[in-house]
């Protein structure tokens, strides 16, 4: 009797222990430190080909300079899914030793003060451009160094199509429409839209922000304080109206609803479509897929009403941050220092070429940058000719803009209605961040 009873208890104990191990033991086995004084640190980056290529080059060059530290590059998906992974890994303390993530409004959503190691007083921060620091600052501390180059939300256009039709770069919206009509008459798709990849639909609104900022310099501050609205601000609503106007005029490629981002780039490179409002992040992808066509592509800012105020909307590079959960803080800081140095820029240029200006001091661009990057530089150099995108100036960004702009571009919803709906959408974000003036 006794033995059987005991056996039962033993088996129960084994069962419960096994269960406990199964429930808690799944987080074990993090790669940290091999033998012989050699350490391995991990760096989480997004999985675009461009990012992975330069991250691996940086890792390689860094290890060459610091032979005792190895860097393992991990990847995550982009977009909302990637945001989710970053947030979840941060809050469960399971983050890599360093990770790349957006600066600006998305940076504020990962609770930097709680989750990240401040690097304000590190010596290498002296190398970082002052225009980058505000977008990785929360409270009084700076949390990241820039990786990658500055970019623009603008119109990429096929120079060959423009040359053939004798067109010049438009400075105002009406010139842009006039150009587009001529292109349509010549049998080419004037404006490429690709709504199967929904985020690409937002450029008419997001890329127009520099024009908004030039018309109303306080818009971002008032927007954050719940005082300015897209639907009621005459400059801000333009982005939605322009999208509606272009859609109604039938200037899009026929298959805009089912085309993808990759197909859009193909149309642009082949001259099947003439103009593609998109982020200049597309340039490295064009370079990989259509290397011989890269210099046929030029860039101009989305035009507004006033030619003299036409400015470029700038996307600052993302940051590389260190989570508080890291066990290799010193090594991680060394990698951060490497990224924020000329050597860091050089390994990026070596890997993927320069796709815009770096925000690290002393990093000059090589002579042979793509034509579109050359078009972009004058705007970057003159402060009065650019403005950071709204997401760098205000933490208020609604999650549904891409669906809303798809609806406007597809003629499902009017511009006015869409702007009002987007104002409704951002409320959730403002409330989640507990911003003053929204509750």
């Amino acid at each position: 009797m006794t033995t059987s009873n005991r056996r039962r208890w033993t088996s129960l104990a084994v069962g419960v222990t096994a269960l406990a191990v199964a429930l808690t033991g799944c987080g074990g086995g993090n790669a940290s430190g091999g033998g012989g004084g050699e350490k391995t640190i991990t760096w989480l980056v997004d999985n675009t080909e461009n990012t992975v290529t330069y991250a691996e080059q940086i890792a390689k060059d860094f290890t060459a300079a610091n032979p005792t530290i190895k860097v393992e590059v991990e990847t995550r998906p982009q977009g909302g899914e990637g945001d989710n992974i970053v947030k979840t890994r941060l809050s469960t303390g399971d983050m890599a030793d360093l990770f790349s993530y957006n600066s600006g409004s998305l940076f504020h959503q990962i609770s930097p003060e709680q989750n990240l190691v401040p690097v304000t007083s590190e010596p290498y921060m002296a190398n970082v451009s002052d225009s980058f620091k505000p977008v990785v600052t929360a409270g009084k501390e700076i949390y990241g160094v820039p990786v990658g180059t500055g970019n623009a939300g603008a119109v990429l256009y096929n120079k060959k199509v423009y040359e053939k039709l004798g067109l010049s770069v438009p400075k105002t919206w009406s010139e842009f429409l006039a150009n587009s009509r001529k292109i349509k008459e010549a049998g080419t798709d004037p404006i490429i839209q690709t709504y199967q990849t929904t985020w690409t639909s937002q450029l008419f609104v997001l890329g127009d922000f520099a024009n908004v900022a030039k018309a109303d310099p306080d818009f971002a501050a008032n927007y954050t304080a719940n005082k300015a609205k897209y639907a009621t601000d005459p400059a801000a609503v333009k982005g939605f109206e322009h999208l509606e106007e272009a859609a109604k005029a039938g200037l899009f490629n026929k298959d805009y609803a089912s085309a993808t981002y990759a197909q859009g780039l193909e149309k642009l490179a082949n001259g099947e479509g003439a103009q593609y409002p998109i982020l200049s992040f597309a340039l490295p992808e064009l370079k990989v897929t259509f290397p011989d066509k890269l210099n046929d592509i030029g860039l101009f800012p989305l035009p507004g009403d006033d030619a003299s105020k036409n400015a470029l909307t700038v996307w600052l590079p993302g940051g590389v941050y260190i989570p508080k959960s890291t066990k290799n803080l010193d090594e991680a800081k060394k990698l951060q220092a490497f990224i924020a140095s000329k050597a860091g820029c050089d390994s990026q240029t070596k890997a993927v070429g320069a796709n815009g200006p770096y925000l690290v001091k002393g990093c000059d661009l090589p002579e042979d940058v793509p034509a579109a990057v050359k078009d972009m530089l004058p705007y970057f150099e003159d402060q009065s000719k650019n403005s950071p995108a709204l997401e760098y100036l205000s933490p208020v960004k609604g999650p549904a803009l891409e669906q809303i702009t798809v609806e406007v571009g597809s003629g499902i919803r009017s511009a006015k209605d869409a702007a009002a709906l987007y104002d409704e959408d951002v409320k959730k974000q403002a409330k989640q961040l507990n911003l003053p003036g929204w509750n």
Partner: protein
Amino acid sequence: MTVNTAPTVSAARPRQAVAPKRRKGKSAYPYWFYLPAAVVYTALFLIPTFASFFFSFTRWTLTDFTFIGLDNFVQFFQEPALLKGLTNTFIYGAVTSVLKVVLGMLLAVLLTSQIIARGYLRSVIFFPVLLSSIGVGIVFTILMDPSKGMINKALEVIGIEGPAWLVDPAWALVSVALVDVWKGVGLATVIYIAGIVSIPAEYFEAAKMDGASSFKSFFNITLPLARPATATVIILSLIGGLRSFDLIWAMTKGGPGFTSDVIASVIFKQYQAGFYGLSTAGNVVLFLIVTAIILPLSMFLNRKEVEQ
């Protein structure tokens, strides 16, 4: 060993007293036998369920929360995409379950008749059920491409200009529902086959003797006697339809715009945007809606069954 004997005897006595009680039908196992299952159930089901009710009343960032009362629910019901999502959920649930009932029944009648390669055909109709929804979604997204997709290319050959399927706001939801039916009708068919096979053959023989046509015996014998199968199919496909998400997400992500959003995709987008409290509130609402529909429906269908 001998030392242990005394306590064993005393320990055995109370157990003997308990034993008859168990025999009265209380339980065949000692209580600790339930412990592992109870630990799993508590850790994986009970705690999350109650935690979700709690967090639906907070503004939650995963690491930290503020109690905000019913604000999340107010916000959720103000969600512009919600009304569209609700209507779409009901349309999707209704369309898929009706089609699965009708097609499942017809296919089951076909596959219980004397046809060639019956076993093979039965398994062919069941195959899509075994596939992953995401895979099916991706494949059909390619097939349904308006200009390059195989479906529209095939329609072109016979002179029909197919709709734009997933990217036409008027067709998007229906297109996904049709794929769902294609994928799920196999299960409905199998349930119906079981239902039809269990109807005693004597009824059909008797009906034949009385000169009933095959239509008559279908409507007067097969259909009423397969009612338990119908109830199961309706409940299963309605539950599946109301909480449908994977296929819609794989094929349209609720688009174009918000035109094929269902409640689950609205909630998922909120979760993705980091509104954890809000999306948890949405899940509580979804739970209540599904319960409110399925509970009375299941009671109604089962009562009918008993009355027969």
